[in-house]
């Protein structure tokens, strides 16, 4: 900002004043009506609820052209939002939460994506946005009273709802970032409290992404240090059956957000910016296989 303007505004604010009655209660009530806050949910599902609210804020400023622009996978923004709704709906189905949109037929995410996209094509982008948000919020509300260790399944991946919802949060984050890049909007990162459990899931997935890619890390141990807000340190056995880590064979240090996005299928694994000490071949195996679970 121009120094003269800053000086002028500061001068105009040199006489702070207080309204006769606090505007706070009516402000918060008005805010709720203008933009829905993150859905109330369990603490462990809040990273997801927060990304849904952020994506919705981004969608709120989308105009007609933005909705028909291709974002990823050859999908327009409207189709991308339908895709998110499709997968959220499948996860909802797996834990008995309401499934919105067209009647549930196929339960793999690509078929369900096609069904929801076909359904949404007949609706306006604004309706698609509302449908997606309604599905996400219904899922959040259902999770409010659920144990995070409740079994849940999506695309044949059997796990617990606590991990599945973190994965949904990561996918929503990655796609909101895709959409923000296309719209040339700067989207701030989630708060550290939301990044941390997401990064933890990503770290715990590494033995599985290796195995899924045909590499067995059994008997090897990774020391992972993720830097930045929400980062931390993990010492991980790389065999999926193992629970106790050994002496680390390799140390990898990387930025926490870049690491989460690597698992989310963004960024070139071969050019992943990381400091590696120890077994360099093992590090390369870990990093190149890391995006194995990232689909559309």
């Amino acid at each position, binding site marked *: 900002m121009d120094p003269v303007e800053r000086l002028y505004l500061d001068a105009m604010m040199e006489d702070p*004043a207080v309204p006769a009655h606090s505007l706070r209660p009516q402000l918060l009530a008005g805010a709720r009506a203008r933009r*829905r806050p993150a859905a109330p949910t369990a603490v462990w599902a809040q990273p997801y609820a927060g990304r849904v609210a952020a994506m919705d804020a981004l969608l709120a400023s989308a105009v007609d052209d933005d909705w028909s622009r291709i974002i990823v996978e050859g999908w327009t923004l409207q189709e991308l939002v339908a895709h998110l709704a499709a997968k959220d709906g499948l996860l909802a189905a797996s834990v008995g939460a309401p499934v919105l949109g067209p009647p549930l037929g196929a339960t793999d995410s690509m078929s369900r994506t096609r069904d929801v996209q076909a359904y949404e094509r007949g609706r306006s982008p604004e309706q698609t946005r509302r449908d997606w948000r309604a599905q996400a919020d219904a899922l959040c509300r259902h999770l409010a009273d659920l144990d995070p260790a409740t079994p849940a399944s999506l695309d044949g991946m059997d796990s617990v709802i606590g991990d599945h919802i973190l994965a949904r949060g990561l996918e929503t984050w990655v796609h909101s970032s895709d959409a923000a890049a296309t719209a040339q909007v700067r989207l701030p990162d989630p708060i550290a409290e939301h990044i941390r459990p997401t990064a933890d899931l990503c770290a715990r997935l590494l033995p599985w992404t290796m195995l899924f890619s045909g590499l067995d890390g059994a008997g090897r141990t990774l020391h992972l240090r993720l830097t930045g807000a929400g980062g931390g340190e993990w010492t991980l056995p790389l065999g999926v059956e193992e629970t106790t880590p050994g002496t680390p064979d390799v140390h990898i240090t990387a930025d926490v957000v870049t690491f989460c996005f690597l698992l989310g299928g963004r960024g070139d694994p071969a050019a992943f910016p990381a400091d590696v000490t120890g077994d360099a071949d093992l590090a390369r195996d870990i990093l190149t296989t890391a995006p194995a679970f990232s689909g559309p």
Partner: protein
Amino acid sequence: MEAPYDDRLLHQRVVGGDEAALGEVYDRLSSLIFGLSLRVTRDRVIAEDITQEVFLVFWERPLAYDPDRGTLRAWLATIAHRRAVDHVRAEERRRVSALGPRLFEREPARLEDTVLAADEAERVRQAVTSLPDGLREAVELAYFGGRTYRQVGEELGVPEGTAKSRIRLALRRLADALAEEEV
């Protein structure tokens, strides 16, 4: 000038749909925004409306604010100022048109991020030159020289606290001087 850490965190929280963060932003900045709106409009009811609207805009469109480009305080103040000035001009137009044909009209086009038109910025610079030397030097160092309160104190050979109160006194005088001219 980049935004401080607090602004970034509150922005992240508001983008993530955290209502409590909006409440915190209101608690921290509402008296400044209301004070500014009141100074420009001289109408408590209008100033309340503008204040409320400014915070609602931040909640509804949080991505319009970019912490890399400035503080939240300055961003909210810019919106409040624009709305307050729009209100005053609309009132002027109403009065003038009630009296008869308009003799002159101020340039209505305003650049998106511009707070002051060229002639208004010039008036602010003039008002700075009219300040007593001790106050003028402090303001010039802080705003045009980019110095901190401490550096201003060092250069003027006074304690930091004195530098700070000189700058605040200068800001107050400037606001009064500019308000007198508007009458």
